[in-house]
């Protein structure tokens, strides 16, 4: 079995494991509950993320109307748009205390975000070392791990900064 198939199987197993953890967590703690302020903030976060995606797609569609981008492949173009939109939603919600439901433990969520960042950054860095992220001057689909890794790493950093500032304010 080649490395590509092994990677796909590892990815599927990881998704199944994460889904199992989420289902187990929901069974123990009950579903995530957001209060009215958090729902409002999350709605606004979705809107900003969605608008970012529309603007990004319109820009990319306009720039590459009848030609392929010369700096990356199609998958990379899409993954960058998804990553930026998801990052805007996450950062907005974290900064306004609406990312976590109020029956979740912040430490667990923080560790979970860091774990996903590490899980994405590890293969991303391996790809970077093998030189497969940029081939013939073009960003390839293999950049997706490192991009999503940075999305989660930035989210974790914002999470830490917000908690740090809050703790400082309460002193």
């Amino acid at each position: 079995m080649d490395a590509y198939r092994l990677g796909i199987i590892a990815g599927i197993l990881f998704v199944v494991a994460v889904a199992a953890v989420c289902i187990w967590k929901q069974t123990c703690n009950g579903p995530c509950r957001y209060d009215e302020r958090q729902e409002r903030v999350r709605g606004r976060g979705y809107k900003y993320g969605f608008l970012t995606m529309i603007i990004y797609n319109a820009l990319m569609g306009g720039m590459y109307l009848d030609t392929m981008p010369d700096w990356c492949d199609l998958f990379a173009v899409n993954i960058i748009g998804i990553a930026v939109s998801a990052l805007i939603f996450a950062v907005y919600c974290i900064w306004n205390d609406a990312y976590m439901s109020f029956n979740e433990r912040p430490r667990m969520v923080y560790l979970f975000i860091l774990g996903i960042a590490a899980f994405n950054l590890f293969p991303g860095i391996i790809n970077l070392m093998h030189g497969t992220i940029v081939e013939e001057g073009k960003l390839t689909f293999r950049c997706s791990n490192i991009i999503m890794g940075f999305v989660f790493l930035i989210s974790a950093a914002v999470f830490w900064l917000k908690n740090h500032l809050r703790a400082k304010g309460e002193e």
Partner: protein
Amino acid sequence: MKNLKLKSARAAKDISQQALAELVGVSRQTISAIEKGDYNPTIRLCIAICKVLDKTLDELFWE
């Protein structure tokens, strides 16, 4: 505008933001945001807070 009436009513009852949040079913940050004047709660939440603090809507939320 800060809601000092809510803050003082909560302090008079010796209830922390976290305890009040749990009693009315919201996050502590939401109670903090209401007290700071950063968030206008719905009438449903106002009533829940008033019930816990034994106050009327006028006493806590009317200027």
